[in-house]
């Protein structure tokens, strides 16, 4: 396969590839818009999705602290507060 032919195939790939990528992500956009339209928002009581969750990352999650840990600590501190108050 000589360079010209290769370049032609690359051109095809470029055209098909970008079309496909845009088509795919465009359809996904439509799907997300449909979801937004038809799926009701969470009850405000839950509030889970509003709370800023940790940022997605393949690298930086070292510093995350277990939420169970935090729950445990706050309950421990609260319990202590009770004993203190009593």
């Amino acid at each position: 396969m000589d360079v010209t032919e290769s370049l032609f195939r690359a051109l095809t790939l470029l055209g098909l590839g970008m079309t496909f990528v845009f088509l795919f992500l465009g359809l996904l956009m439509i799907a997300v818009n449909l979801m937004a339209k038809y799926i009701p928002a969470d009850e405000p009581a839950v509030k889970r999705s509003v709370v800023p969750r940790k940022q997605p990352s393949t690298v930086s999650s070292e510093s995350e602290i277990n939420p169970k840990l935090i729950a445990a600590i706050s309950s421990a501190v609260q319990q202590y507060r009770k004993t203190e108050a009593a």
Partner: protein
Amino acid sequence: MDGLTKLWMDTGIANFGLPDLVMIAVGCLLLYLAIARKFEPLLLLPIGFGAILANIPNAGFNDEGGMLYYVYHVGIETGVFPLIIFMGVGALTDFGALIANPKVLFLGAAAQFGIFATLFGAILLNLIPGFEFSLQDASAIAIIGGADGPTAIFLASKLAPDLLGAIAVAAYSYMALVPIIQPPIMRALTTQEEREIKMEQLRPVSKKEKIIFPLAVLLLTILFLPAATPLVGMFCLGNLMRESGVVERLSSTAQNELINIVTIFLGLGVGSKLSADKFLNIETLGILALGAIAFSIGTASGVIMAKIMGRFSKSPINPLIGAAGVSAVPMAARVANKVGLEANPHNFLLMHAMGPNVAGVLGSAVAAGVLLALVG
């Protein structure tokens, strides 16, 4: 003193060729970048170490029965390690920002132009004597522009295993260099006013939307691009485990222990491909050059697409977030935020840039699928 001779004949000193030494120096350079410069250390440290081990004469790490031999053939040749990593990345990814503002998917699409444009570069390099990139090679090199490690390793292991080492090193190095590569391009393509544009606050996204999202992505992949389902499927599995809320145990393991274990061995296995005969040639220089071009074109396409969309959009779009479309999660989004803050110290773009950033992950997985289907 037969034994002494034998011991001496075995030593590295007696057996080193210049190529081995150079490759060990390359491994040390990668360790330096990882440790002192904090260049994607999670991957570059084991890759660098693997490169050193693989190039020790008479140590046999890469020979049948050697540690790295098993790691490479069991984990990388099969594609299993990058897929497990991608599952973990899915479990680490929050698509909230993307679901709240789905237009940014086009930014993640536009940035993939870097991949396909680089194909031409790779082919044109064949005009220079010493380069002989097949279309498979060109595709595996071009995917560096996807700025996504597991995708690049997966595709390279399928299309061009001999180039795997150089491609992975280029991909992770440029991801680490995103804060240096991107800002000049971003500034060159935008005006001060554009960089100051404030974007509207994102709406809250419901739990259900987040659960359905990975399934919708999977459905589209099944319908239109089965070749991308290994990558996209494992990614969506990870994300579904995360968002479903019913398998916290599994999601947490996928995000932590499992991804960590596999990362160590993926790095070592990639490093094992950094052997002198495959790395010390002019093609590696070509790959490094092409990778930089791919990143730059991807960044530029993202920014330009954001400018175009800004013209037609009702809500304002800061073109800087387009640069995050190359993925390199979360570095590129942080860079967009930082460049935005330089223009306007009160303009926090981070959450807005996370949308195109994760869209870029999907975009490059789709691009990898197209390449696999048409070139593989």
